[in-house]
């Protein structure tokens, strides 16, 4: 039945079907990525756009300059703050929400699931603006709610010590619903008899959580952890809209620094080197995380 003509026909049909996607992805993804790698070793800047013959190769100079630049380290520190503080906070919030929505006694699960997920689909620019006002030291709802508990007003967006926590707050609110969904699916795939066996052994809810729920969620944690981290390393719109990187550059992220260098000052070679350094950091941290979690899963 699989005659030669059918095979040949599928062969040529396949490439026709693939052509639009492969051409688009090739021209607008693979070519730019490879060109970016080359560009990161050159002094490509605004003058190079009109006079490509002036472009010079500089070897590793861009990378050296980035790594010697205090601005870069400041941006990296801010970004790492976001990853290290915001990541676990966001994952913990997601897990708590998932446990509540998935609790046996909970009613209207669908309603609460939808409510918790709603921020995920909203436009970051719009909600970052909303948070600017919610975090206003005097008129903002957040400080007024805290005032109820006798917390002195916090200058969230004006005080360099509070600006990153403010961005973490926005990001956790915006994103926890996404990982919540994945945790709910993970929780639902834990076999019921594991809990029954634990109960027979006299395990209370805390023991069940520690010895049944958490270990069973291992693969989910790995997935959620890596995806969350990758997203957070690329943070851009939150600080761009909410703080413009301020106050005192306390919220400039690595991608924001890349944007400024590349598209405001047109130092494109330099900006591309920043992007590749960030990529290398993300890959390294991902591999470490997979190793750590993989080892834990085996023991």
């Amino acid at each position, binding site marked *: 039945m699989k005659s030669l003509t059918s095979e040949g026909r*599928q*062969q040529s*049909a*396949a490439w026709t*079907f693939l052509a*639009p*996607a*492969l051409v*688009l*992805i090739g021209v*607008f*993804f*693979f*070519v*730019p*990525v490879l*060109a*970016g*790698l080359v560009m990161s070793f050159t002094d490509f800047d605004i003058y190079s756009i009109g006079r490509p013959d002036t472009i010079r190769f500089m070897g590793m100079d861009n990378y050296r300059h980035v790594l010697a630049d205090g601005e870069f380290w400041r941006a990296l520190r801010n970004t790492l703050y976001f990853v290290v503080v915001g990541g676990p906070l966001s994952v913990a919030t997601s897990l708590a929400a998932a446990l*509540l*929505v998935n*609790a*046996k*006694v909970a009613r209207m699960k669908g309603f*609460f*699931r939808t*409510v*918790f*997920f*709603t*921020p995920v689909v909203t*436009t970051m*620019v*719009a*909600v970052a*603006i*909303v948070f*600017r006002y*919610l975090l206003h030291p*005097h*008129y903002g*709802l957040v400080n*007024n709610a805290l005032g109820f508990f006798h917390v002195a007003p916090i200058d969230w967006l004006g005080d360099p010590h509070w600006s990153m926590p403010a961005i973490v707050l926005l990001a956790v609110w915006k994103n926890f*619903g996404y990982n919540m*969904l*994945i945790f709910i*699916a993970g929780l639902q795939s834990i076999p019921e008899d594991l*809990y029954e066996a634990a*109960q027979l052994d006299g395990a209370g809810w805390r023991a069940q*959580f520690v010895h049944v729920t958490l270990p069973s969620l291992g693969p989910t944690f790995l997935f959620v952890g890596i995806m969350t981290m990758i997203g957070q390393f*690329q943070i*851009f719109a939150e600080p761009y809209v909410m703080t413009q990187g301020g106050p005192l550059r306390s919220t400039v992220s690595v*991608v924001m620094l*890349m944007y400024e260098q590349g598209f405001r000052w047109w130092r*494109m070679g330099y*900006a*591309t080197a920043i*992007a590749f350094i960030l*990529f290398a950091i*993300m890959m390294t941290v991902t591999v470490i995380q997979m190793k750590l979690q993989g080892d834990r899963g085996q023991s």
Partner: protein
Amino acid sequence: MKRALPSLLVHALLILGALVTLTPLLWMVSASFMPTGQASSFPPPLLPSAPTLEHYVDLFTRLNLARNFANSLLITVGVTLFSLVVNSMAGYAFAKLRFKGRDATFKVLVAAMVIPGQVGMMPLFLIVKSLGLVNTPWGVMITGLATVFGIFMIRQFALSIPDDLLDAARIDGASEWRIYWTIVLPVLKPILVTMATFSFLSAWNDFMWPLIVLSDSSQYTLPVALANLVGEHVQDTELMMAGSVLTVLPVLGVFLVMQRSYIKGVLMGSVKG
């Protein structure tokens, strides 16, 4: 956790969580109807004293945001339709057609998913510029017209199409194009609906690339226009909230209508691990 947490505690926490989650959005809507200056009074009011539509009127008259709304809509719908066709053709080919180099090509694409877009952003801008697409809707759309993620999702779904169904059509003399159009696409409908929702939301909400490509305020998408507006009108809380409502409303609407298939898609995407 059977009988683990008492019902009262669970529901109290759920309701508290829902309130905290919804407050920013509800306040946004409420403040957008407040008369100018009311949102910046102390203590902060939760509801408008005298609800007004003046800020919405302002957005569409003085600030001419209808133009930006139209830009966003055009780009979003364009990207969604175009990517559905391109991704479904490729996804189907990877899943069901027998050809040399299939697995190798697919592996390269999937491996490329780990590369963050920023590393190619400067050259991409230069390519878009050399094509004369800077400051045009096409320049914005170009990154979303074909996506590895979309191809991947559609391929996973298309794997379940029985080969016999396709071979029978071939024996009946149907062309490959006809098989795709009359047999494959109808079967793929559920995943296409999911991917359309994904694509709509991400294209509408996208910020960084439109910000880079568009330089003229008449060409801005709604999020870029809004981010620009907040620079000049930061004191006009109520006006900015009306703008935020306008920006969020379409995606919220699409999500609420499509949530079942959207959520299914999120879970499918996470299974690949």
